[in-house]
């Protein structure tokens, strides 16, 4: 049957198919493996793990990915990414529907989502335009300053941001008859956007824009001498990162069902950096690994500590210890550890195989 299909197919579709086949064949086996596992996770896990562990990891990973893109490819450590996510979350609450009917404007979900992504991206670009004139520690300081300003502003402003309480009842739409906040649906929703963000970053890193951004990171002076506007490139990177963070922010708000100043307080803002560093800030998969470690520690450290007769509030101590240990052993996070040890393991396996071969002879 497959044969008759290819015979009847036109040359163009055949060419396209073979091209697609070739591209799919270049995807490494471990990517397939991870993809299949992730697709099957809901079949062997409960609601809590799907929603609170994986869903949350995907969302935090996506927000952290926007920082990884700026820091890893652009050399700009921006602490404003969680704030960008919160701007998107607030926009969804303000333009769409929430429990605070006096403020929420009740737009249809697609309009409020589009507006949220646009406004959050603009916010990220505006921050970038200020920050790109600085380097290193000063970029961190200026973005942290903007993040804290946003936190205090939302906490004090009641007419737009509803102050300390923020907005509750911010829910995803019931599309195609599915409640997207139900654990399995949200698992796939967040997995889809996390994967989309991941592949977008991988793709963009090899486009002229991505290559030039890495050039700006390594050698801004030479890039200017090749005709590139260094600042314009950096600002464009903020725009791309802004879209990633905005999508993450909307998902975060939907999964919590609420948005309040605490979402983007200084703690969570820095957590995004911690997540990226734990996982590995130089590769796009790093933030997701970091997010999973962070969420697992946050979720289970409490039980662990209570079991040891310690106060459960000290879970941050465990997160901090984990951070210290990983950064001490590998400045490049878990991905760095992997890169360090995987070749050795492979070598050992080869040696074993060759010695086995010899004994066979």
């Amino acid at each position: 049957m497959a044969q008759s299909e290819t015979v009847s197919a036109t040359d163009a579709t055949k060419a396209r198919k073979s091209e697609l086949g070739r591209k799919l064949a270049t995807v490494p086996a471990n990517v397939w493996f991870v993809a299949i596992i992730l697709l099957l996770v809901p079949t062997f896990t409960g609601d809590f793990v799907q929603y609170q562990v994986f869903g949350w990891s995907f969302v935090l990973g996506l927000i952290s990915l926007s920082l990884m893109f700026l820091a890893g490819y652009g050399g700009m450590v921006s602490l404003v990414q969680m704030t960008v996510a919160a701007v998107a979350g607030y926009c969804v609450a303000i333009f769409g529907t929430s429990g605070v009917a006096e403020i929420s404007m009740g737009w249809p979900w697609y309009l409020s989502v589009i507006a949220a992504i646009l406004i959050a991206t603009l916010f990220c670009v505006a921050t970038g335009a200020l920050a790109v004139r600085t380097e290193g520690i000063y970029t961190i300081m200026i973005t942290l300053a903007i993040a804290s300003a946003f936190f205090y502003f939302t906490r004090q402003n009641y007419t737009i941001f509803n102050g300390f309480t923020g907005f509750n009842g911010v829910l995803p739409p019931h599309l195609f008859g599915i409640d997207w906040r139900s654990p399995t649906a949200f698992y796939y929703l967040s997995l889809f956007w996390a994967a989309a963000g991941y592949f977008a970053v991988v793709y963009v890193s090899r486009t002229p824009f991505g290559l030039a951004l890495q050039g700006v990171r390594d050698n801004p002076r030479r890039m200017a001498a090749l005709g590139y506007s260094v600042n314009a490139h950096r600002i464009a990177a903020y725009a791309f990162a802004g879209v990633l963070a905005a999508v993450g922010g909307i998902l975060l708000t939907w999964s919590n069902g609420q948005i309040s100043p605490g979402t983007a307080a200084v703690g969570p803002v820095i957590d995004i950096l911690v997540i990226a560093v734990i996982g590995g800030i130089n590769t796009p998969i790093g933030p997701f690994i970091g997010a999973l470690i962070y969420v697992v520690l946050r979720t289970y450290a409490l039980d662990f500590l209570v079991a040891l007769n310690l106060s459960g509030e000290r879970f941050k101590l465990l997160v901090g210890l984990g951070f210290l240990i990983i950064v001490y052993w590998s400045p490049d996070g878990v991905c760095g550890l992997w890169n360090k040890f995987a070749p050795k393991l492979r070598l050992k396996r080869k040696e074993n195989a060759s010695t086995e071969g010899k004994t066979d002879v």
Partner: protein
Amino acid sequence: MSEQSLKQDIGTEYALELRGVTKQFGALNALTDITMSIRPGERRAVLGSNGAGKTTLFNCITGDFPPTSGSVMFFGEDVTAFPAHERIRRGLRRTYQISLLFDGLTVRDNVYLACRGVSRGRFSMRRANGDDALMHAAENLIDIVHLDDVREATVSDLSYGQQRQLEIALALAGAPRLVLLDEPAAGLSPSERKDLVSILGRLPTHMGYVIIEHDMDVALRVADRVTMMHNGKIFKDGAPEEIENDPEVQALYLGGGHD
């Protein structure tokens, strides 16, 4: 005569014109009142001892940093206030004395980035494929500087001489009108120098360049005109033979060049 003076007034006669360019670093006068002009297609060598201000001059011309005072005209346009990338897009190019390359990228990607920098689509979000016109241009440049054997190699794996050749390739991307070469021959072996001279000799005649060079032999072979700098000022200016035979230049070069 009057036509010529008119031309001079609007400045189109020169590819590059410096008017009283001065650069101070704190109390140090790196450049003092440099006035010079270079015609389109001219090949000029700039000589001078260490600290004479040659590289500072290049930095002021390309906009790596602005001059303290004076103005820089590029093909009749005042570019003094322009950022570096705007000057590059107008046809100015430069190489660096200490190679500034992208060590983690391949030779091809380096040259491709250079070609992309002076064309449209710098922000393109589409990956380049094999039949991209700019990719062809990059391959071409790699051939011109004789790096065709190592086009797939990562820059950090290249020899020093090959890195210097790549520097030149990056400066030839697009349609340069004037190229500033900052000591391209420094540290090269005699055979590599010969190669460099032949690369420069084969550039199209409309493409002018200014070359900083310590080696008199190389400088005199590749230039139509020579400018001698000393202590941030222009010391002598003339045809290669004139400069070579000038007793003051000889004293400066052979006698250590101290005041």
